[in-house]
């Protein structure tokens, strides 16, 4: 187990390094940011001065090396556009994105697993059919469209929820978040539901499919034949086995929630990271792009790592295979 964890950590570092090189070279190929940054009336001398100031006159490997050394010390450079350190800007925006993503995540999980399990156990019941209908609608409507529908329905026609922005924030334990205030929760629920809808619908389907498959397996029949109570069979035998495929999907979906909330953030004018990335790409704000893409990559690597660990905790077969491979 420990062998495996160490090995996996080394792999992660390798992946991050490889990714940073790809990013760096890719951006270098895209074009010179100086043309975007300086005004069109600037002289050639001004242009050269800007290039030197930004360190763009150095060879690319030297630029990369400088970036890497600084990045490891926590300095991700200064945004070309905002003229502020990238880390400061990101840290301002990150909590908003994170809180939206986590609320959406818990809404999605909290609803989809019980609903999917029920739909798998009682596929013929009318509640299951309603659940499946709901999930079909959920996967079919584009996110931006259902977001606008939700705003019209629950923000304007029936003004249950405020629309736009984050609400009051408060700081506890050094974390500034709107989740510490009631007003913040009031603001976050509608966009979080909108963000959760697609994931929820997908997870309902995955949970139901896994449950349907497991219910007819012999070990479930054998558990019944031993006289085990149905509730125990559902939670100990069926749900635990259904979690094996589910965890993979949940991991991917969590990553997507954290990294690609851009549509929902735009529709609900949520001051998160999503919009920032799009804007940075538009104006070729290199340090911002690099930092955000690295953040996304780190996110997925961390989640995949956690998914592997969870798999090993739940499934002894994975544990023995991984254990052997690590040796």
């Amino acid at each position, binding site marked *: 187990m420990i062998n495996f964890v160490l090995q996996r950590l080394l792999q992660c570092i390798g992946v991050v390094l490889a990714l940073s090189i790809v990013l760096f070279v890719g951006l270098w190929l895209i074009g010179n940011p100086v043309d975007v940054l300086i005004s069109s009336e600037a002289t050639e001398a001004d242009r050269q001065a800007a290039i030197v100031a930004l360190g763009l006159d150095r060879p690319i490997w030297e630029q990369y090396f400088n970036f890497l050394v600084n990045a490891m010390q926590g300095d991700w450079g200064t945004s070309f556009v905002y003229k502020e350190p990238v880390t400061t800007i990101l840290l301002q925006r990150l909590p908003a994105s994170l809180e939206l993503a986590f609320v959406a995540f818990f809404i999605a999980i909290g609803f989809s697993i019980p609903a999917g399990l029920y739909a798998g156990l009682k596929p*013929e019941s009318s509640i299951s059919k309603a659940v499946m209908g709901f999930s079909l609608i959920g996967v079919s409507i584009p996110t931006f469209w259902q977001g606008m529908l939700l705003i019209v329905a629950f923000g304007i026609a029936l003004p249950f929820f405020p629309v736009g922005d984050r609400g009051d924030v408060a700081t506890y334990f050094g974390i500034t978040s709107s989740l510490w205030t009631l007003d913040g929760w009031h603001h976050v629920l509608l966009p979080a539901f909108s963000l959760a809808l697609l994931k929820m619908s997908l997870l309902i389907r995955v949970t139901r499919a896994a449950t349907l498959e497991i219910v*007819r*397996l*012999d*070990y479930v*029949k*054998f*558990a*019944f*034949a*031993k*006289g*085990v*109570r*149905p509730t*125990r069979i559902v939670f*100990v*035998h069926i749900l*635990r*086995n259904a979690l*094996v495929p589910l965890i993979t999907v949940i991991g991917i979906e969590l990553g997507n929630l954290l990294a690609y909330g851009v549509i929902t953030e735009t529709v609900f004018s949520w001051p998160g990271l999503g919009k920032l990335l799009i804007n940075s790409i538009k104006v070729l704000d290199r340090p911002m792009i690099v930092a955000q893409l690295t953040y996304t990559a780190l996110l997925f690597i961390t989640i995949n790592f956690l998914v592997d660990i969870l798999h090993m905790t*739940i*499934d*002894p*077969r994975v544990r*023995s295979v991984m254990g052997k491979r690590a040796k």
Partner: protein
Amino acid sequence: MSEQFFEVEGLNTWFFTRAGTFKSVRDVSFNLKRGEVLGIVGESGSGKSVTGMSIMGQVEKPGKIVSGSIRLDGKELTELSFDQMRKYRGRRIAMVFQNPLMTLNPLMRVRQQMFEAISEHENVPAAQMRERSIAALKAVGIPSPEERLEAYPHELSGGMRQRVVIATALLMNPDLIIADEPTTALDVTIQAQIIHQMRSQITDRGLGMIWITHDLATLSELADRILVMYAGAMMETGATAEIIAMPRHPYTSKLLESVPSNNEPGQRLKQIRGTMPSLLDLGEGCAFRSRCERASPACEISPPMRSFSSTHHAWCHHPIEG
């Protein structure tokens, strides 16, 4: 020991699907004494497994026990609710399934799966559950049972897993064990060992066992009596020696002829021509008539029971006379 403690009478289990009603088990009756092994033999689709699941009260939707009676020590089981029946499953009637690789939950230790078979029925301290589990594992010939208790299913071989399943079935000291092709998926040598061990458990403990199989050859070594089923109905029943030596029903006789060891070496294996009729459009009459060499217009009517001894009966218009 010789009283009939378990009786099935006129059992009908049908499946109501969109395509129509599949009459998987039709008017099946048999009984069992303590210490006795009844073999139910038939091809796939003969209704032998559905009979087992009916006894367990575990017929899956859209299937249903339409009529008939299943009595254990005089207690009518078909009238029990699913939850009342739960107290019988595992405790009074245990079941062993066909594929040992699939019968154990892959995520749970053997210990957890055995303990659960006890703790769902009675409140026993863990130490005692452990003792009983180890004793049961020993009884089915598992070496170093203490270690096996902590194993996960994937760490055990197929034969070992089936022994664990059988030990689990024996844990509550049930009155009846239903074994649905428990050795079909195993090597022949292991098959023989397991059959031997089960036979001695049945005799020692005075349990009744229903051994469901398609393999007449193993039954001849194991069963006291045999019930031959075809397309959901009983064809013939009798003491093992009677059935093997003097089959009365043409189907039983064909079944015996198709056992490979009864064939001359180098000869083509004997087959029964044709295929089983669909359970969907079974009308009146003998279900085997479409494949039977002795069939006549009389076979359009359901055949009566013919008795050849106090134990030997066949349902046939044209039985093979001795």
